[in-house]
């Protein structure tokens, strides 16, 4: 038990910050991100021996963080319809930063599962098969969620400048 506890503490010390960054990508809210990670770590702590026996404990924990995010969203909201992008943020002197900020704001109002897929794909660089495993859905569903999310981002963020965008093959 002592060895498992030491191993768990070492995991938190080495990967805790990365887990928080990942959770923040999902929630866009630091407090919620901390809640998600803490809840996930409480859950895995109880069965840490079995978690480390898995080949990729960090991937396992990220999966729990993702489930916590989706579960929390379902508990706390009456629906998952995309919202309206908030009004224009404080102007940034750089147009490039402005564009990235627009993407960030558009991500924030995507339905949770679409946002989770995009975070897993573009922030975690996970292949769709692994994302499907995390979300416990078919690979085709992942592709569909990603496609819808990207279409929404494209439509909402650059409706006035469609010519500046192309999609990777």
């Amino acid at each position, binding site marked *: 038990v002592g060895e498992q506890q030491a191993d768990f503490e070492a995991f938190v010390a080495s990967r805790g910050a990365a887990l928080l960054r990942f959770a923040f990508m999902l929630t866009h809210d630091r407090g919620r991100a901390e809640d998600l990670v803490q809840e996930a770590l*409480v859950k895995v702590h109880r*069965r840490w021996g079995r978690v480390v026996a898995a080949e990729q404990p960090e991937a396992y924990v990220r999966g729990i963080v993702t489930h916590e995010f989706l*579960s929390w969203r379902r*508990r706390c909201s*009456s629906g998952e319809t995309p919202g309206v992008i908030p009004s224009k943020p404080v102007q940034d002197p750089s147009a490039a930063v402005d564009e990235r900020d627009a*993407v*960030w704001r558009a991500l924030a109002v995507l339905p949770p599962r679409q946002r989770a897929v995009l975070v897993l794909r*573009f922030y975690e660089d996970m292949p769709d098969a692994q994302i499907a495993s995390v979300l416990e859905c078919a690979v085709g569903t992942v592709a569909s969620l990603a496609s819808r999310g990207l279409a929404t*981002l494209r439509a909402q963020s650059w409706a006035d400048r469609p010519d*500046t965008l192309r999609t990777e093959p």
Partner: protein
Amino acid sequence: MSTLEDLIRDSMRLHELHAPNPSGLLSAVASREQARRRRLQGAAAGGAVAVVASAFLAANMAAGGQQHPGGATPSVTAATPLPGGDVVSHLAAPVTVNRTGSAVVEIGAAPAGADHLDIELTCLSAGTFTVADGASMSCSTADAASDTGTMTYELHLDPGQHTTTITTAGESRWRLTVTYSTVRTTAWGVNKAGQTFGVANANGTPTLVAVDATNGKTGYAYARDLDQPQAANPSEALAWQNGPQKEIDVPVYTSDGKTVIGTFVTHRAAPPK
């Protein structure tokens, strides 16, 4: 020309969180586990515990939690709790101190009937702050003197006790408001069908457990619907625990146990086929 995919990656990198010290995260996890164990004291045993805990936590959120000590007049501080919830009554004026580093806080003589200390601890600088029973709070600089850097808590009061201790490393600064209180657990409600309803407490779990539905309404789910399936033996339990978790929609009723007002989402181990 950037692709949308490039912009998404850039956007995520640009907005990446500057994460706090992981050692603070570990303390927060330990504190959360401790708080959960406290909430679970006396609750149903076995596989139902985790689910009941979730429902109980949701019910606590639904109840709005406890109000903070604010006035100099002894008063009942809790909003009307859900049946089975706790009511905290202040029995004395609050004492507020600001301190740096570990310190013992003198509260004065305890009034008759006091059995708890209602505390509100606020960090005024970064650090980890531990109350007398071991529960702790970790703060980053951003948390200092903010809502996220404030912890409210009920500490058990021992006979003759007139001080409480806050422990922290180095020169971390904090503010403590502490009030002699008594905590009373209210009774569960009973509907026309004779079913108990409310929140899980030291007496166990009612038939209908308070939950927050996905539509934001507060209602009750049957405890049996929140139960995990009972494994026949430890190895089967282990297999279930390591297996996939299935998302389950549980109906939420009014206290009559018949009128459906929403849905509560829980996760359940899927028994291997």
